[in-house]
């Protein structure tokens, strides 16, 4: 191999090496871009899922709260009925007592 040929071979190798590195850098840039895009997609998906979950929780809360309130109200109404019945049975005695207060002149 002549000197010129040797230099040519070395220059070609260096060009090939430079291309390898350029290609690797391009590939690295592509990898970074892909991951950015992937992260954005994942973020969108996870946010959508979270929003759906939040909406379901809110919807359920309204129903659960109403059920709990209805249960409380039903029990309270029963208690109130008892209270009204008890008080009604004491009306005559109360009328007697209050009438006596008015009639008591000291």
């Amino acid at each position, binding site marked *: 191999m002549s000197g010129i040929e040797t230099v040519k071979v070395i220059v070609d190798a260096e060009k090939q090496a430079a291309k390898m590195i350029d290609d690797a850098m391009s*590939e*690295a840039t592509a990898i970074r871009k892909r991951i950015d895009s992937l*992260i954005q997609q994942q973020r969108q998906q*996870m946010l959508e899922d*979270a929003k759906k979950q939040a909406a379901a929780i809110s919807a359920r809360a309204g129903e*659960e709260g109403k059920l709990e309130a209805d249960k409380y109200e039903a029990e309270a109404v029963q208690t109130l009925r008892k209270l*009204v019945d008890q*008080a009604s049975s004491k009306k005559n005695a109360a009328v007697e007592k209050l*009438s006596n207060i008015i009639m008591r*002149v000291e």
Partner: protein
Amino acid sequence: MIMSETDKFTEDILGTAREKAQSIIREAEAQTQHASDEAKATISRETEGIVRGARADADAVKRREVSEARHRVKLREQHEKDKIVQDVLDRVKKRMSELVADEAKYVPLLTHLIERGLEELGDTSALIHLNKVDLKRIPSLEQAVSKRVEHVKVEWSKEPIDTTGGTVISSLDGKIRIVNTLDQRFEALESKLLIEARASLFGE
């Protein structure tokens, strides 16, 4: 086959470049992996915040529903109690109007009200006012009152007053009036009656 010096040299150049290229890609992959992990953690925190917020809102919604139910029940309870108390007070008023027809019970009370009115007026003369029905009772009242209050010159007004029962005692010039009617007693005692009624009916 024996490699020439040139071949070795070019192979070194290419080998070094290959390693460098692999290193660049490994570094990019490592960086992206790190960025991905960080992003996932950030997104997780973000989504957890959304769900946590929704749970807090949900708890608030539930509490509000129950609280509104409590409020409704409280109002209803208050309404029912007020109805019962009002019924009792109405019946007391009715009892008062029935009482004035019961001579045996009412006349002693009326006599007592007149006597107390005269004492309260503290004058040597007084004018006694009664309702239309009680005006007819003046003869029997005169006797009873004169027995108890000897030091006061009593005059009986012929003009009836508008009241369920009881009396209004006034000075002869009308400047001082002692109101001892049953209606006035009811009104004056109303707050006490309400307290007593609630205590008797509901143990409050």
